[in-house]
C-alpha cells in the first residue's frame, strides 16, 4: 500500500480523517484544560498571598 493510497482511505478520506482529527482535538483538550486551570489557580493564590503580605 502506497502512502497516497493510505491518505485516500479507499475514497472515505474525508470521513475517516475528520473522525481521527476530532478525536485528537478532544483528547488534547481534556489534558490542556486542567493544566490551564491549575496555572490560573496558582496565579490567583499567589496574588492573594502577596496582597495579604502587604497589609
Amino acid at each position, binding site marked *: *500500500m502506497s502512502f497516497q493510497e*493510505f491518505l485516500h*482511505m*479507499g*475514497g*472515505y478520506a474525508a*470521513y*475517516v480523517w*475528520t*473522525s*481521527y482529527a*476530532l*478525536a485528537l482535538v*478532544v*483528547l488534547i*483538550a*481534556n*489534558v490542556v*484544560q*486542567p*493544566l490551564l*486551570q*491549575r496555572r490560573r*489557580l*496558582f496565579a490567583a*493564590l*499567589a496574588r492573594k*498571598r502577596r496582597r495579604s503580605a502587604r497589609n
Partner: protein
Amino acid sequence: MMRFIHRLASPKYFYDVAGRIVPWAGWGALILILVGAYWGLVEAPADYQQGDSFRIIYVHVPAAWMSLFIYVVMAAAGAIGLVWRIKLAEIIAIASAPIGASFTFLALVTGSLWGKPMWGTWWVWDARLTSELILLFLYLGVMALYGAVEDKRMASRAAAILAIVGVVNIPIIHYSVEWWNTLHQGPTVTKLDKPSIAPEMLWPLLIMAVGFQLYYVATVLMRARVELLERERNSRWVQELVQPR
C-alpha cells in the same frame, strides 16, 4: 485496609498519590492509543462491505463505551458522596462529567461521519442515536447544575441526584439496538462467546479501548487534583504547596 482507605480519603494524601498515578496512566494511554491507531489505520484489512470507512470504528466504539462507563462512574461516585459525604467522591464525580461529555460528543460526531457514507444520512432519530444524544444532555445538565450553585458541597449533591436519575438512560442506550428496530447495527463485540468481528480487526479495537480507559484515569485525576486545590484553597497544605517555606 481500613487504615489505607482512611488515609486515601485525606485530601493531601490523595493529591500526592493521584499525582504519581497521572504520568503512568497518561504515558500508557498515549502508547496504547498510538499503537491502536496505527494498527487500526494501517495494518487492519479493509472491511469487505464498508471498505476503509469502517476504520472509524477505532474511535467511535471506544468513545461510545467510555461515554457509558464514565457516566456510571460519575453516578456511583455521586451516590457515594451523597450517602457518606465523602468529599473525594464528590470531586471524582464532577471531574468525570466534562470527560464523559467529550467522549459522548466524539461518539455522536464520529457516528455521524460514519453514517453519512454508509447509511446515506448524517442523522436519524432512531433509538440508539437519540438515547446517546440524551446522554450528552445529561452530562451537560450535571455540569451546568454544578456550576450554577455557589456552595460546592451543595452543588455536588444537586449534580449527584441528577446523575443518579439519569442512570436509567444507560441500559436504554445499551439495549436500544435490541429493543427497537434501529438503523444502528447490533452488538458485534460484546457477544462474548463468539464476537462476529475478525481478530485482526478486533485487537486494535481492544487496545484502543484500554488506551481510552487509561486516558480517562489520567485526565480524571488531573481534574480532580485541581478541583481539590480549589476547594481546599484556604487550608494549610495548599498554602504550603503554593509557596513552600
